[in-house]
């Protein structure tokens, strides 16, 4: 019997991404953020998630896409890691999909750039490909990333 897994999906720059449902704490509409001066650029700010302070990570910057267009407000996919919760800012939330493990494939060798590090692979869905985000990688960033205009 092939194993199936559930993914919470979202869109970034019209690409479909997925994170394993187990690691997702919740999905929220746009929440107001407090900017953190001097912080790495990928940190968009801090969010008050019912009394819990959560760092919001700008996935666009994290994946080194161009800067997000300001026309829509980002939504939050709050994931848990060993350090607490981190919110991934995404364009739009998709469905929860159940995929068969057999549809998984490693990223092609021709894929370059930051995104290669950030995804573990893709699942071949019927309509499109779902990029499986490595949440630990996506969250760990910042530590090594350059602060905004460092001295």
């Amino acid at each position, binding site marked *: 019997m092939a194993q199936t897994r559930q993914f919470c999906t979202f869109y970034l720059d019209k690409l479909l991404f997925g994170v394993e449902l187990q690691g997702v704490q919740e999905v929220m509409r746009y929440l*107001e*953020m*407090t*900017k*953190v*001066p*001097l*912080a*790495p650029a*990928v*940190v968009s*700010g*801090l*969010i*008050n998630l019912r*009394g*819990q*302070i*959560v*760092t919001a*990570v700008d996935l666009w910057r994290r994946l080194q896409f161009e800067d997000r267009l300001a026309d829509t407000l980002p939504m939050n996919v709050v994931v848990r890691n060993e*350090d*607490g919760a*981190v919110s991934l800012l995404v364009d739009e939330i998709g469905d929860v999909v159940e995929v068969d493990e057999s549809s998984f494939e490693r990223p092609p060798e021709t894929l370059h750039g930051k995104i290669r590090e950030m995804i573990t692979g893709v699942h071949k869905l019927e309509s499109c490909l779902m990029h499986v985000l490595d949440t630990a990688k996506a*969250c760990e*960033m*910042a*530590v090594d990333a350059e*602060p*905004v*205009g460092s001295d």
Partner: protein
Amino acid sequence: MSESDIVKDFLVESAENLDRLDQELVGLEKNPTDRDMLASVFRTIHTIKGTCGFLGFNKLEKVAHVGESLLTLLRDGKLTLNPEITTALLHMVDAVRQMLSEIQSTGQDGNNEYLELIETLTRLQTPGAKGKKQAPAASAPIQPTQPSPQPAPPAPEIAPPPPPKMDSQAHTESSGQPVSAETRSRDAAAETIRVGVNVLDKLMTLVGELVLARNQLLQFSNSSEDANFLAISQRMNLIATELQEGVMKTRMQPIGNVWSQFPRTVRDVAVALGKEVEIEMEGKETELDKTIIEAIKDPLTHLVRNSVDHGIEPPEARVKAGKDRKGRLTLRAFHEGGQVNIEISDDGSGLDVERIRKKAVERAVVTAEQAARLGDREIFNLIFLPGFSTAEKVTNVSGRGVGMDVVKTNVEKIGGSVDVQSKKGQGTTVRVKIPLTLAIIPALVVTSGGDRFAIPQVNLTELVRLESDEVEKAIELVHGSPVYRLRGRLLPLVYLNKELRLETDDKTKAEQDGAVNIVVLQADERLFGLVVDVINDTEEIVVKPLRKQLKNVRTFAGASIMGDGKVALILDVMGLAQRASVITEVRDRNLAEKAAEAAERSGEKRTFLLFAGPDDARMAVPLDTLARLEEMPSSQVEKAGTQWVAQYRGKILALVNLAFALDERRTEPRNTKSFVSSNDADPIQVLVCNHEGNPVGLVVERIIDIVEDYATVKYPASRPGVLYSAVIQERVTELLDIPGILKAAGVGKAGELLPAEVVH
């Protein structure tokens, strides 16, 4: 809850209380002045009275009321309990019990007014009525039962009371005193409960949330005019504050808990070092949050050991210096300005400013020029840099230069600071300042660039506002750096907007009207003025740590959720001051970090003598293990028995040729005339070292250089006589085991050689 439910609860509760009351009254009779018991009896009756009034049982209330009045007098010591009063009170208890059972069955407190009982109880309240009392008192006990039959219907129901009374009395008489004693011991045991820390932590978190919610509520109530709502939120505010204090208290522990192990530590260290040290403690009961207590335990232990090891001199030295043989180590803890100060002082030799200065230059922590400029205090604080130890000897207690920096880092991690003061010959005092608690702190909220920031109140000393017309005159420039004269002293100014690269929005600019708000802050004993756009208010904030993504941003100590639900960052005043170079630590830190890196690589830099051994092998020994380097003509070498020697400074110097000593197979040719293999005409190179008090010369081929290096990368020796191989000046070099060689060569037989610390 319906009214009948309340009544039911009341009945259950009262029944329990009445049972206890019986026992207590009897116990009281034996010990009429027991205040606690009287108070307990009083409370029970008082509660019953209060509840009856509320539920509308007027007759019961009346009885309880007179009883209470009588008990008040007893409790206050205006009357002394005598058997008569006890009896009356017991009757009252019976009456109450009767009425309660009435209530239970009919829902009403019956028709019996208990007038006579009331009268008796009232009469007993006048102490003067003693004489007359006798007669009525005799009748009083009977009366409760006597009058009861008179009011017709409830009579049968009132009849039962005597048995329970008898019962209770019999019961209590047999075991009255023991029972009360037991009760009390149980009470005492109930005064403390072991509670898991996780439960307290959870409570703390919840209280944190509550405080947040309270702040939000208060913010909201500001815009409301509903008097009721305002009153409720006000009450809510008070309760939350009290609850917060209460829960915080549960986590408080006296610092004595940590200190209690110090006498032992001090004794151990002192004995190991042959010192005599007395330890004194003041302010043991000073309380601190549990997490803080844990965090400062190690740093304090280190400081204490350090004081005994480096601070306090050996007894002889002390006597010579005219001090008491016994060194004195004093620990003091006290509260000051919302912080706890802990002082560790010794009356030892004090810190040697010059030596630290020299060492600092040696270690390249500061340049010679900088060192000359630094004041004593700054010099003292250099000892907190990594890899810095002024101990001349490395002991197993301390002196490895790791420690003081760890102390500082650990204390700073919990928002504290360390400072050292010392007077040569008189002793050293290390002062550790730490916050009382970490979880909820009072803070000043300011706005800059449209964002709010919280500044912990502990760092705050005062606020200054300059109106627009003063600004120009008041803020002066010292070569471009803005300063403000605060009571005659220059206060460096730091603009928060500039430091955090914020943009002042035009709206606040307009509101400010050119005025300048200065928040005077203290960082590491240094004052500076932080210029912010708006000063909002002070608020109790709940500190939430920043996640690791933001750990590198040193200007923030954490974040908090404000009354309006938005997140505000908490400024780390120390970090901010460093960023703005108010305190020079950034530079010191960088140097220190480099030093630490180096220290990590090896311990510390040492000076080595590089020389060529047999077969031109590159070898080295630490320079400090040698006494001298000598060059002598080979003709000076003589033979004494089987030992090659040379005359040296009026002594006979035993000589060992390294070429023979190192290679076991190439045993020293004892018969040969020539000691050295090379040309006899060449002078020989001798490394003179002290071996068991006598100089011994080690003959090497050629001396290469004297170098400083860490000698880090090590691997095991490939032959005897060599300690290990290391990389010195980027070349693999063998470190010579001089004592080993001398021993193998049979120079001096006994064991203790040069200190083995050469190795590490």
